């Protein structure tokens, strides 16, 4: 994997996710990010950015979400930054994966995927911004 970074501005519209995923894939291929890692990062970013677009703003129109990705030797770090209401998705309760079908809840699947796919996930409120950072090591 090669060292590099990219900042992608995404309009707060779920239709933008496809463009985001395309750009992340291009960046990943250019920087020799292993395809499994790229798949995981793309899915995690999809979940996080979709969450912000759907629930982060009182009025999503005209808002943007910033995705910052950087690669070093053995780690990819990505941050999702938005100016929406203060919200830490990591506080959501984890789904009970052992529950029988009738008791399985529909919520919390996305953030569970993010946690499972990444090596480290953290949230920070910086000034008026939500900053969600994910890290994936390359083995």
């Amino acid at each position, binding site marked *: 994997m090669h060292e590099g970074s990219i900042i992608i501005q995404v309009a707060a519209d*779920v*239709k933008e*996710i*496809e463009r985001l995923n395309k750009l992340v894939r291009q960046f990943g291929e250019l920087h020799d990010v292993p395809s*499994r890692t790229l*798949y995981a990062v793309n*899915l995690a970013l*999809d*979940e996080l950015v*979709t969450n912000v677009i*759907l629930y982060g703003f009182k009025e999503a129109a005209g808002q943007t979400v910033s995705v910052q990705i950087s690669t070093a030797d053995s780690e990819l770090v990505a941050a999702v930054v938005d100016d929406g209401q203060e919200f830490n998705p990591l506080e959501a309760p984890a*789904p009970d*994966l*052992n529950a*029988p*079908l*009738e008791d*399985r809840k*529909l919520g919390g*699947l*996305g953030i*569970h*995927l993010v946690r*499972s*796919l990444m090596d480290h996930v953290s949230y920070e409120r910086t000034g008026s911004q939500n900053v969600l950072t994910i890290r994936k090591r390359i083995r």
Partner: protein
Amino acid sequence: MEIQEEKQGDILIVKIDDHLDTSTAPVFEQRLTALIDRGERKLVIDCGSVQYVNSAGLKVFLLAAKKLEPLGGRLVVCSLTQSVLMIFEMIGFTRIMKIAPTLEEALRVFGPAPAA
């Protein structure tokens, strides 16, 4: 998204393609709900062409399985690609849904085909 349906006896095979995400999941959900509402109880979802699924798409499988169970129906998911199977395992769906490696094996879950 393209959704194809094929009936084999009393089993309905639903084949979906490519991307099951926030934009396409509502279409898939509406279709599955309509099929269950019209009385389909044995459903096979053929995911052989699905390359990508996010939580919005996963939710549709869970919803359909939950809807079918009290009706005495069953949802079988088959032919998952490697990366999508990994996601199903990660989210615990392999414990609550029948996952078959091929369409043939999915059909066999419902027992032998009735004699013609």
